[in-house]
């Protein structure tokens, strides 16, 4: 009846996950109760859960990422404490629990923090920058988000029901095969990634189509803001790489569920095939994450330097070069596994070549700043912090891309330091920069500056104190994923890293405080102009938060830096305009499809993990029914009448007129 599920699935003997689970459960119930009692449920349902507005979906993505960042962060704290105390002792975590933590940490941070954060920002901003009303497929967009949420939910369920994988964030076989991992941990891992992977693919298709087919009038490719270019590159990579992940995990699942022999040790299975497939996805994946961050930095640096981006065209070229080359280097993740010197040399050189377009980007940012009027607002701090940090990460990357060096450093703490260097210093800093930069656009008020800067400095310093010691420990021969160790030389570095983790935590707390304080003071921080930073691209041309339809008219773009140009133009010319003629606007209707889909996906995923076959069938039927009902809909659009558009837009225009007359004083 319940497949493999019984009371033994709940870890009554392990206090930590149980307590953590209980706390989370109480938290969720409390929030739910509050929502219901306060009567916010209809509002949430109509305005958020069923919303197909790209801005709302973007915000929900970012919210999901933030919550999961706390979850992944607490895993990180636990690991750092374990390695700090586990010198010549067992530490406070049993080994199999430690293994689950590092697996969950990596999985969560990549798939449920970094991915939703960048996808959320792209969702939120790209249609605005392109001057259009929504993404290409609004309902599908909501489906994509909710499927990502399903994946996150399943990972968190594993905390209290059953266990998570102990195989690392990429579940290498044969360890992840049934004979070595008979529990449900790997199944939790694989199904949650499968489901959220579908969501990611949907988002990728959506954004590629949006950028290629929906640009407003006059928005030629070489007038698109940099963030749109990196979004395009990143989503092309999603579309090309995520199916590889889907296929690979499907193969692993077939091995585990039906006794297939893709990656087993028996009957001719081939473990190296897994390595090739997973890294053919995995290396592009890191660029899927970091390219949008590059785009954010480009926007931020040029805005806060008050200058057009230096070398725009070379930036576009570099972006596309990275997009392509990132698919040709996957083998550098297993230099040590016997591919031979020729193959290693080729992939080593290919890996180093990526450093060239990346270098081009760094120089362009520096030249953009050179001679500019730099304002050190919080987003700019994150960007400068990024440049310094990422250069170190890139250099160590080039170092591990040298095969002989990699033979020493592979699987060491050095590697751990490298990829945290690029992922935190690149992706996360980018996400935070984008968050601070676009928050006023999304909500109509700025974030508190002092807390923002405090958050930056603590995170920045904390980052260095945590990860530089890991480079050293790696050089001293410490391998990754150690539950405990006996080498005295490593101990001090682990202690320093733990202190760094504490500093990082203060940074995170500052960020939370910043949000709370800003919401409290939102009246004082209110931005009525829609353009708090003196921005350059079209998202600043509309009010904050933008109306559902984004723009009353489709903007007509005549050059790069569309909005900046317009302001300069408006200042020279007098500001009396003819009353514009407004038209009705058609917008997509809200739809519960995404939420319902995700509900059935959750049921099905859970049932598959626990081999509850009747429930699988039920979930499948439900999913198909949702599809048919969705396909059967008659009206998927509603009309906003012209006078309503006019009423909304007049307010925006009035603010903007004031802004332009004040321009130059900012």
């Amino acid at each position: 009846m319940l497949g493999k599920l019984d009371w033994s699935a709940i870890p009554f003997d392990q206090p930590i996950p149980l307590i953590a689970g209980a706390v989370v459960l109480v938290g969720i119930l409390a929030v739910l109760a509050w929502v219901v009692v306060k009567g916010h449920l209809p509002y949430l349902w109509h305005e958020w859960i069923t919303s197909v507005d790209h801005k709302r979906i973007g915000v929900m993505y970012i919210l999901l990422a933030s919550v999961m960042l706390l979850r992944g962060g607490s895993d990180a704290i636990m690991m750092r404490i374990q390695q700090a105390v586990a010198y010549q002792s067992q530490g406070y975590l049993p080994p199999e629990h430690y293994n689950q933590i590092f697996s969950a940490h990596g999985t969560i941070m990549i798939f449920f923090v970094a991915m939703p954060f960048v996808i959320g920002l792209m969702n939120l901003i790209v249609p605005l920058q392109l001057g259009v009303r929504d993404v290409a497929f609004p309902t599908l967009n909501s489906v994509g988000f909710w499927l990502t949420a399903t994946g996150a939910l399943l990972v968190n369920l594993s905390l209290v029901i059953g266990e998570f994988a102990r195989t690392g964030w990429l579940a290498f076989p044969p360890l992840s095969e049934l004979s070595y991992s008979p529990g449900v941990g790997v199944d939790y891992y694989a199904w949650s990634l499968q489901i959220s992977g579908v969501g990611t693919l949907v988002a990728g298709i959506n954004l590629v189509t949006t950028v290629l087919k929906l640009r407003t009038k006059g928005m030629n490719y070489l007038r698109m803001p940099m963030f749109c270019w990196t979004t395009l590159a990143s989503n092309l990579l999603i579309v090309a790489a995520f199916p590889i992940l889907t296929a690979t995990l499907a193969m692993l699942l077939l091995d585990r569920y039906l006794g297939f022999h893709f990656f087993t040790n028996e009957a001719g299975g081939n473990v190296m095939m897994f390595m090739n497939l997973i890294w053919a996805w995995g290396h592009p994946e890191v660029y899927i994450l970091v390219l949008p961050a590059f785009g954010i930095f480009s926007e931020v640096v040029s805005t806060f330097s008050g200058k057009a981006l230096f070398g725009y065209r070379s930036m576009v070229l570099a972006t596309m070069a990275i997009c392509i080359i990132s698919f040709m280097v996957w083998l550098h993740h297993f230099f040590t596994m016997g591919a031979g010197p020729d193959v290693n040399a080729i992939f080593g050189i290919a890996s180093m070549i990526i450093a060239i377009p990346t270098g081009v980007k760094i120089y362009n940012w520096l030249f953009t700043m050179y001679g500019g009027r730099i304002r050190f607002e919080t987003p700019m701090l994150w960007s400068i912090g990024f440049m310094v940090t990422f250069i170190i990460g890139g250099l160590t990357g080039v170092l591990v891309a040298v095969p002989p060096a990699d033979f020493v450093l592979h699987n060491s703490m050095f590697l751990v330091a490298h990829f945290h260097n690029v992922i935190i210093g690149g992706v996360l800093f980018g996400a935070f920069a984008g968050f601070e930069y676009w928050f006023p656009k999304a909500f109509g008020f700025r974030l508190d500056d002092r807390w923002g800067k405090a958050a930056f400095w603590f995170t920045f310093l904390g980052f260095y104190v945590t990860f530089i010691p890991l480079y050293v420990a790696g050089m001293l021969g410490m391998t990754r994923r150690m539950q405990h160790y006996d080498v005295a030389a490593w101990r001090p570095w682990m202690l320093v890293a733990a202190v760094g983790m504490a500093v990082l935590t203060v940074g995170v707390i500052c960020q939370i405080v910043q949000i709370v304080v800003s919401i409290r003071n939102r009246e004082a921080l209110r931005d009525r102009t829609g353009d708090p930073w003196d921005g350059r691209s079209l998202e600043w041309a509309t009010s904050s938060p933008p109306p559902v339809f984004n723009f009353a008219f489709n903007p007509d773009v005549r050059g790069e830096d569309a909005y900046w140009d317009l302001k300069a133009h408006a200042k020279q010319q007098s500001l009396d305009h003819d009353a514009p003629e407004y038209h009705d606007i058609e917008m997509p209707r809200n739809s519960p499809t995404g939420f319902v889909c995700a509900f059935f996906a959750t049921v099905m995923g859970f049932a598959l993990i626990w081999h509850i076959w009747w429930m699988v069938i039920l979930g499948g039927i439900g999913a198909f029914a949702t599809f048919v009902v969705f396909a059967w809909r008659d009206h998927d659009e509603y009309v906003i009448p012209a006078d309503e558009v006019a009423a909304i837009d007049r307010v925006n225009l009035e603010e903007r007129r004031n802004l332009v007359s004040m321009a130059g004083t900012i």
Partner: protein
Amino acid sequence: MSMTATAGRAHADPHHIGLVIEHPGPAPKRIVTAYGFWIFLLSDIVMFSCFFAAYAVLADQTAGGPKGSEIFDQRNVAIETVCLLLSSFTCGMASIAADVRNRFWFYLGMAVTCLLGLIFLVIEFREFADLVARGYGPSRSAFLTSFFSLVGCHGLHVSAGILWLLTMMAQVFAKGFRADVLRRMMCFALFWHALDIVWVGVFSVVYLLGSGV
């Protein structure tokens, strides 16, 4: 007012060189839908390529079990291929019928497509069942694993296509040739033709190469 209506000016484009083809604005819905679906198909083909790659890697790993040439029945495969290629033709007829709003030919084209698809599936299913009955199931060897997965994955797609096909017929029946129904029909046709292309790959790589022709 022209502020939101006109953003920026031509002379402000510092890199403006020679002729600039002005972008006309968002594409019509039909194009956007088809374009998005194309991209989905490309991603699906990437997924198939992984199974093809796995097959290429594992084809010789028979672990003492049968080789491809011992289990493939050329006659069956030929019938399957003919069915599928013909069904692409009839699907094309149905698309044309939909474009000219001719219900009779639309239903006929779709019905024949469905029938051909079903024949294909039945033959494939019998081939699988027969192999399993002889003890040559997918867990027998890595070769059989990759064979069953690649061919089965295509078969699953065909099954999904048939479900979709029936939904399309029902939609035309209930709603007529509405613009959104036509858009979906276009996607369905793309999907069905793409499956044909994948089958040509399966046919060549698995059955032709595998039986040493």
